[in-house]
C-alpha cells in the first residue's frame, strides 16, 4: 500500500479545508472498506467450490466405480480382485481366473470386451468429468501361453503353437483408444499401462479391452489335435483401472 498524497500549495492566510486531507486519504480508506480483499487475493483466487471436502461416491453408474470429487480434481477407480489359488504343475489357471478360449467363446480377432458376467467390475469406470485432462492407468495381470499340437500322417509330427502370437491391452475413453500396452508375448505379466486424454464436462466411460492374436486366424484352420490347448486361451487374473480428472 503506497503512501502518497498531493501537495497542496497555498499562501499565507489561505484556509486549508478538511476536503484537502480527505481527498488524499480517500483512496487508501477505500481499501479498508472492503476492497483490500480484492487487492490481496484475486476475486477468483478462492471460491466456495474450493472450500468443500472430498466427496466420495460409490457405484453411481452401475459398474462399481469409486470416485472422490475434490475441489481441483477427481479420482475414480474400480478393481477386479479374485481369490487366487495355487496351480498344479504345468497348469495355468487358478479356479477363479478369467480364461477365455477363442474356439469356444467366438472372439473377434480385434479388440474384445471382457465378459462382464465374469469380470463383474474393474474393466470399466464411469464418472462425471469436468473440462480438463484425464490421467490414469490400468494395472492388469494378463497371461498367454504356447500350446502344442500333434498331427497324424507318415511320419507323425508335433508342433508348438501360438509361440509368436501376441496379446495387447487397450484403454478406450468414450469409445476412443487413448492407451495401449503394445504387443506382449508368452508369459504372465502384471502390466502398468498409463494413459491420458483431454476431456470435456460430460459423462465419461473408460473401458479396458484386450486383443489376442491367433495364428489360426490366418488360415482359419485351428490345430485339431492338441496335446496342450493353452495356446487358444487368453487369461486375466486381476485388474485395477483408475483415472484422475484434473480440472482446467
Amino acid at each position, binding site marked *: *500500500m503506497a*503512501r502518497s*498524497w498531493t501537495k497542496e500549495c497555498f499562501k499565507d492566510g*489561505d484556509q*486549508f*479545508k*478538511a476536503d484537502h*486531507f*480527505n481527498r*488524499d*486519504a480517500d483512496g*487508501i*480508506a477505500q*481499501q*479498508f472498506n472492503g476492497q483490500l*480483499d480484492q487487492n*490481496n*487475493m484475486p476475486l477468483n483466487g478462492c471460491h466456495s467450490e*474450493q*472450500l*468443500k*471436502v*472430498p466427496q*466420495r461416491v460409490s457405484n453411481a453408474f452401475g459398474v462399481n466405480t*469409486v*470416485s*472422490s*470429487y*475434490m*475441489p*481441483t480434481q477427481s*479420482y475414480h*477407480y474400480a478393481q477386479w*480382485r479374485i481369490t*487366487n489359488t*495355487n*496351480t498344479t*504343475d*504345468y*497348469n*495355468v489357471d*487358478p479356479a477363479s481366473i478369467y480364461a477365455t478360449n477363442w474356439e469356444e467363446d467366438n472372439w473377434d480377432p480385434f479388440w474384445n470386451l471382457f465378459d462382464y458376467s465374469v469380470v463383474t467390475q474393474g474393466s470399466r469406470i464411469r464418472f462425471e468429468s469436468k473440462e480438463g485432462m484425464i490421467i490414469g492407468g490400468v*494395472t492388469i*495381470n494378463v*497371461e498367454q*501361453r*504356447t*500350446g*502344442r499340437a500333434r498331427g497324424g500322417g507318415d511320419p507323425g509330427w508335433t508342433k*508348438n503353437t501360438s*509361440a509368436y502370437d501376441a496379446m495387447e491391452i487397450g484403454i478406450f475413453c468414450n469409445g476412443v483408444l487413448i492407451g495401449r500396452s503394445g504387443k506382449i508375448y*508368452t*508369459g*504372465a505379466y*502384471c502390466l*502398468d499401462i498409463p494413459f491420458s486424454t483431454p476431456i470435456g464436462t460430460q459423462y465419461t466411460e473408460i473401458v479396458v479391452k484386450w486383443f489376442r492374436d491367433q495364428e489360426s486366424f490366418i488360415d482359419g484352420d485351428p490345430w485339431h489335435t492338441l496335446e*496342450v490347448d*493353452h495356446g487358444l486361451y487368453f487369461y486375466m487374473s*486381476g485388474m*485395477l483401472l483408475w483415472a484422475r480428472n484434473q480440472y482446467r
Partner: protein
Amino acid sequence: MGEEPVQMSNNLIYTNGQAGQPSNANNETDNFFNQLATDSGQIDQSNTRTEWVSTRHIDWQDKPLIKMYAHRDNSNHSSNNYNGTTYQTVTHGGSGSTELTFTAVPFRVGDVFRYHFNFRTNPSNNDLGANKGRDYFWVKAQIQIDTGGGATWTDLGFDTRNSFGTHRAAAGSDYPCAGYRMYGMTFIHIPGYTGTVTGMRVQVRTEHNSMNLNMENWNQQLKVVGA
C-alpha cells in the same frame, strides 16, 4: 478463528479550520499517513480472510494437494532370492526393507491413496530350466492402517501373479526369457472410512518352493491426496 481481529487505530484526525488561520500546524496529515504506513502490514493480514487458508475448511496444508508422500527404493541395486509358498515381506535393499513405517497420518472419507511399486527381476538366477511350469510368483502391496481397532496391514489393490515366460507343458518347447524384466503396479484406494495410515510394504511368494524369485531393484511410493 479464536483470535480477535486486529483493531485499526489510524483514524484520520484533524483540527477544524478557522477562518484566517492555518490549520495544519500540528502535522495531523503526516501523523496520519505515517501511522497508516506502519499499520499496512497488519491491515493486509487482518483483511485477508485467514480462514480461507486454514485447515478447518479445506484441509490445505503446506503441500495442499498431497497430504503425505512416502518413498523408498533399493538404492544399492542389490538382489535377493525369495521362495516359499507363503507371503513374506521384501526386506532387502540399500535403504532398508520395503516395510516402511512412519508417523501416523490421518485420512478422511474421500482422500485418495495412490500407491506405486515397481521392481526388476533377474531370471538368470532363477533356475528356470529345472522349474519349467513352476515359475509363477506373486506380489502384493499392503498399507498399515488404523480405523479404530489398531494398526492392521491391509491389502491394497489385488495380488499380482507373474511368471517368466515358460510354457505350461511337460513336453515341448521352452521359453525361459533370459534377461531383466521390469514389473510395475499402481493401485488407487479411496476409503469410505476415516483412520490413520502408518506404513507400507510389499510381500511376495512363489508357487513352488523349488523356484526362486530373484528380485533386484525396487521402488515404492505412497501418496495421500486430499484436495
